[in-house]
Every structure is written in C-alpha cells, then in structure tokens.
C-alpha cells in the first residue's frame, strides 16, 4: 500500500534504465508480491463475481454483481398497520398500532419482489395515528454488523494501543534499574500466539473466571458478568485482550523511535528552562513523527484484520456482536461453503483497507517528509 502511494505522488516518471541494479535487487520481492499478494487479490476479485462453491470449485459460473448486491442491498419501506373491519388502525392493549410481520413482505413469494429475502435491521418514525412505521431492510444484516464492528474495533484500538504503547515506551525508556526486566515483561505477550492468548483470556473472562472473582473481592454485591457471552461487553473484552497481546510490539517500535532522538536536544531544552511536558511536546513528539506514521498504519491494518480472537473465543457471537469482516469471509467461505460470496466480502474488505491506508498516508505525509 505504501508503494502505491509513492507512485501516486507526482514525482518524476519511474526510470528503469538509470536504476537497473536497484530494480534487480527489488526483483525477488516484486515477484513474491505478485504471486502472493497481487495474484490472490485478482483471483478473489474474479471469484467474487462467480457462484463458486467450496464443494464444487470445478465449474463456477459468472453471476455478475449478484454477490455484491446481496451483500450491500438495502431498502427502506413504510409499513402500514393492520386495519380493523371498519378501516380504523388496529391497536393492541397498549394503544400501539399492530404491524404485520416484516417477514410477510420478504417471503420468497412476496409481491414486493425487491424485498424478498431481506431482513429488518432498524425501524424508526412510528406514527400511532396514521399507523405507519419506517423499516430499514438489508439483504445481509450480518455484513453490516461485521462492517460496523470492524470499524469500531479499529477506531478504539488504534488510539488506545498506540497511546498505551507510547506510555509504556516512555516508562521503560527512563534510566531505571531493571528496566530490561520491564521491557521483557511487556513484550512477552507479543511473542505468544494469539490462539494461546485467547484461550488464557477465555479462562480469565468466563463467568466464574479470575477477573470476575477479583472484582467480587472489591465489590461484594457484584453480579458476575459473562464478559464474552454478553452482547454489551463481548467486543470490549475482545478489545482488551487484543491490546494486551499487541501493545508490547508497538512499545518496542516507539522505544526505537525514542532512542533516535539525540540527547543534545533534551540538554538544549533543559538549558532553555523547559519543563518535562514541554520537553515531551517540543522535543520528543516531533522526533517521533516517523514512528507515529508507522505505528498508526500497522495498528490500523492489523485491527481491521481482526480474526483469530473471534474465531477462538466467540465465533462472531453473541448475536453477531463480535462478527468482523474477515471472520464473516471465513465463515461464509468455509462453513457456508460459498467461496464466491466470501470472495466478494474479502474484496470489499480489501477496498476498505486500501482507502483507509491511503487516507492515513495522505494525512500523515507531511509528517513523513
């Protein structure tokens, strides 16, 4: 992705002749990228327009944009309440209008052809008098849920993990006794496989697990929360353990950045009477700009690709509250065995990551120069 933006910058045309040796050195990497990145992306785009099935990969048929339509399809519908024999709006015992089941409009034999197979995701603007309500229907509610979950996860994790990493880096950058011990402790989770981390956290998070017991000691009347089994807490539990696992890596990156800032700058700042905050604000922070760009982009891409923890711990549940785009791709492709439909999700995911990364590059380009 970085390579793409480099090209998009209006620099002079790429000159192959002048830089033969350079290209020769790049060749192995370029070939690998072509085979293992560009080719799969091209294949996935192609498969996304077919009805390829896992069981029947030999003869997939092209189905046009059908996969994308059934992922992205949305519709708004004004639902009219049932009427009494005299034509008045039928009401229930609370005086609320009685609406027909949305399913009656979405069945395969529904007269509303464009609504067939859709599911309600939201309703609003209920009007008791006229007996109407607006209903938003989607062809694939799980897809929209996965999309918002993925974006929410990235939105929370990127600043939190980046910030926490910086904080830890600042702590272990000080000239303290035993700082290498702390560096090691913070870094160990990063070296542990995410599957192992997930299983450990499963024990910590379960209803009679250690976290609940610890809270119980502090707050005696506390009712144990089933962190991963509750739709309100599941995503936060995933966020917590994900940051715990990955923050050490970014601490090391930040630490690397901190070590490139010359000591003389700090000495000069102190001579000028700068306090600790001013030192950080005017010496450390500007010196970390390059690191910031790297940390931002790597966390974003990793966060958008959230999968392992979900697959091990929640399988997207409860009620899709932790389903992500990558998990849905896996689930659709391997469990529902619809490779074509799964490819269309992964293609949309690719476009999403590309757009976000390009945006980040454009916004941080200045910092990088």
């Amino acid at each position, binding site marked *: 992705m970085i390579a793409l933006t480099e090209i998009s910058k209006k620099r002079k045309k790429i000159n192959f002749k002048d830089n033969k040796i350079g290209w020769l050195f790049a060749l192995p990497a370029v070939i690998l990228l072509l085979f293992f990145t560009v080719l799969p992306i091209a294949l996935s785009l192609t498969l996304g327009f077919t009805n390829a099935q896992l069981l029947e990969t030999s003869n997939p048929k092209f189905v046009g944009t059908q996969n994308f339509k059934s992922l992205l399809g949305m519709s708004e519908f004004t639902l009219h309440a049932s009427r009494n024999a005299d034509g008045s709006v039928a009401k229930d015992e609370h005086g609320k209008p009685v609406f027909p089941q949305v399913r009656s409009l979405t069945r395969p034999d529904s007269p509303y052809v464009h609504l067939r197979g859709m599911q309600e995701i939201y309703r609003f603007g209920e009007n008791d008098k006229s007996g109407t309500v607006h209903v938003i229907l989607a062809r694939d509610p799980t897809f929209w849920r996965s999309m918002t979950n993925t974006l929410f996860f990235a939105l929370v994790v990127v600043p939190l993990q980046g910030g926490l990493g910086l904080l830890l880096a600042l702590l272990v950058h000080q000239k303290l006794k035993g700082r290498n011990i702390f560096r090691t402790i913070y870094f160990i989770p990063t070296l542990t496989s995410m599957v192992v981390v997930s299983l450990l956290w499963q024990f910590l998070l379960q209803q009679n697990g250690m976290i609940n017991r610890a809270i119980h000691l502090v707050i005696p009347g506390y009712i144990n929360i089933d962190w991963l089994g509750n*739709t309100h807490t599941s995503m936060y539990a995933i966020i917590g353990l994900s940051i715990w696992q990955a923050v050490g890596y970014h601490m090391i990156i930040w630490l690397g950045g901190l070590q490139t800032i010359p000591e003389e700058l700090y000495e000069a700042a102190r001579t000028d009477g700068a306090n600790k905050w001013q030192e950080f604000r005017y010496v450390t922070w500007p010196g970390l700009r390059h690191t910031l760009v790297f940390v931002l982009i790597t966390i974003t891409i990793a966060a958008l690709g959230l999968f392992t923890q979900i697959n091990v711990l929640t399988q997207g549940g409860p009620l899709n509250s932790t389903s992500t785009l990558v998990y849905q791709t896996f689930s659709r492709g391997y469990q529902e065995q619809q490779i074509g439909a799964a490819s269309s999700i992964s293609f949309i995911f690719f476009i999403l990551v590309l757009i976000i990364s390009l945006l980040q590059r454009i916004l941080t380009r200045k910092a990088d120069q």
Partner: protein
Amino acid sequence: MNPKRRLSLAVVFATVGLIVPAAGVAQAAPAAITMWTHNGGNAAELADVNLTVKDFNASQSKYKVIVKAFPQASYNDAVAAAAASNNLPCIVDSDAPNIPAWVYAGYLSPLTLPASLTKPFVPAVKGIINGKLYSIGTYNAAVGLFTTKTILAELGLRTPTIANPWTLAEFNDAMSKAKASGKFDYALELGNNNTGEWWPYFYSPFLQSFGGDLINRAGYKTAEGSLNGKAAVAWGNWWQGLFANGLSPKNETADQHNNGFVTGKFAFAWDGAWDGPNFLKKYGTDLAILPPPNLGTHPVIGGGSWEWAITRTCSSSAGANAWLAYAIQTKYLIKFANDLGNMPVTPAAAAASPFFGPGKPFAPLQDFSAQLVTLRPPTPAYPILAKVFENAARAIKDGGDVQNTLDGAVDTINTVLKSNNFYKTKK
C-alpha cells in the same frame, strides 16, 4: 509442494531411513498412506486408532499408514480446504451426516471391502449411497437424559419410558423443580460449550420432536416452513427459555460440561453414551438413563457417528482398504466400544461389551438408538444446514428474536440450495 512430489520425497526419506540402519541391504520402502482423523482432542479414541495403525504397519511391509489427528472443531474445515486444493489424504473419518456431501463433491471412492466383512455391521454405521458402501464406522453412539434415581425420587418425578416419555409440560416441570430445589447450580447440562456438529446432533432432535426440521425432507429443496414454521418457533421459544430462566447455563464452561453432573452441580445431563462410563463410575446403580422427552410429536435422538472413508485421490486405495479391513476385526471393534463407552457395531463385539446388551447398564441407550433415531437430513447440503442451524440456535440462546432468526436461517439455506442448483446429481 504438490502431493506427488511430497510423496516421492517421503519415499526418498523413508528409503534412506531404511537403508542406513540395514547397512546397505536394499529393501522396497512401504507405500505411505496418510490418514486424517478428527479425534486429536480425544486421547482414548486416538490411542485405539493408533493401535490399529501400529499393528497394521507391523503386520505387513507393503504399506505404512501415517496418522494425522486434528481437533474436532476444525476437522471438517480442514478436509474441505484440502479438497479445494486437491490435497486430500488417503483415509479420512467423517461424521455420518457429512458422507452424502462428501460423496456428492467427489471426495470419496466406494470401499472395496469384501461383503462378508461388512455384513455383520448394524446399518446405522454404514454410509451407503446409490447402493454403494462409502463408509463404515467402528462404533455407534446414542444420546440420553442422564440423572439419578435419587434425584428423581427427591423431586417427586415420574420415571419416563420410551412408550411413555415425559411430555413437554412434564419435562419443563422437572427442570423447574430441580432448579427450585436449590440443590443444584443448574437443572440441565447441555454441553453448549462445544461447537460444530455437536449442535445439530444434540439439539436438532428437540426441534424435530416439536415437529420442525432443518429442511423440508420432501425433495430437500427448501427450509421454508420446516425451520421457521409454528413448530420451529415453539422450539425456539422453549430453547431460549432454558437459558433465560437459568435452567441451563447460557455459556457452559468446559469444567461444567465435563464435571457438572458427576459433581452434583447439575441434576440432569443431556449427553452421549461416551460419557456414560464416567457417570456409572460415580453413581453406579443409582444412575438413571431417561429417554428424550416428547416435546410435541414424538421423542427423538440423533443417530450415526464417525465413520471411515477412502478418498478418490488416494494413490494406494488397495492399501487403504487393507488397513480398514484390518481395523474392523472384532478385537478392535471391542476396544473401540469398550474403551470409549460406545455402542458395539457387530453381534460379536456386542457379546463382549460390559455396557451394552440385555440387563447391562447402558441397555436403555441401545433401545433409544433402535427406536427413537431421526437421522440428520441425508443431503449434500447437510454441512450447510448444520452450520446455519448452529448459528441460529446460538443466536436464539443469546436472546435473539426467534422468528427473525429462524427466517434469516431459512433465507440463508434457501440461497445456498439455489446457488448449488439443489444438488442435482452431477453427470
């Protein structure tokens, strides 16, 4: 690396390995036959599989079977992925309801075992499609509602029989009484911490007992009405209530599943025959094995268990069949049944069972298996039905709207059926 090259490399290494210790004595290397099995997490079962392989490898020098064990949760995905990349092993095991899909997809070739060997096997463990035998199992399984006679007496409950099982009201009453007694953490242990095939195997019989099903079995062309009709919605509401009313834990832990009933924290366990020996050890003659309740139409349990099959891409099919013929000898069938608490599959193996047979402790399970089984739908679409059912049952357990969830499940199933052209037999 392509399989042929991998195979030839393996042969080279195996040859080197044989020649060097034999100090230059030339000897033909045995053909390697890879086997995949689902029981990576089940030490006792894997040990029995390994025993047949070890004995078989030692019994002749033409073939060498190599076992690769997978965790059950990811086994089917691994096979599907291997098939898509043309990398299937020679021998696979498969949960019985997946056999039609695997045959349809062209993964498997018919077994070439002599009929005299397979004849004594009970029909439930033979995967016969279009008149050809594609798979055979070394054990059979059944499910029952485990409790103790003491618990039944203390709660003042009638002992149900196959002819006169608990009704929906009686079952609900039993669960409420167990919960209200205050003696147990929960009334019912269901094992919902398990994933995959566990869900349709253990829980779709409840749906079928209500009168619903995973698909309309007349033609296998739609799930509309079967999985989202009145009976299915009644099942969904009841199922949701088990968890909402605290009768069963919403998210069981592995510890609750493995030890909940034997430590007396659960009054009832809806569990498989394989956990029976453990229960028997703890409760002895007090153990009571009850038939499933009749929740609307009739009492139902699931049928079929894991079976062995041979892939179409297997390069030494003769060797694979030779192992299978070796592994289904009575002495191994006895081990598979007795070590695992499973039902024996031939009369000869049954005679040696300490658990099954007239008057033996698990005889009731044998009766359930003979009389109450509704097989999971025998259609190539089954793996998808199973996954969609699991997702829906989970969503309902977690408090999702029953009708909407089931409607969504039906739409998913019907879409898949349509895009596979209703699995019409390929030419």
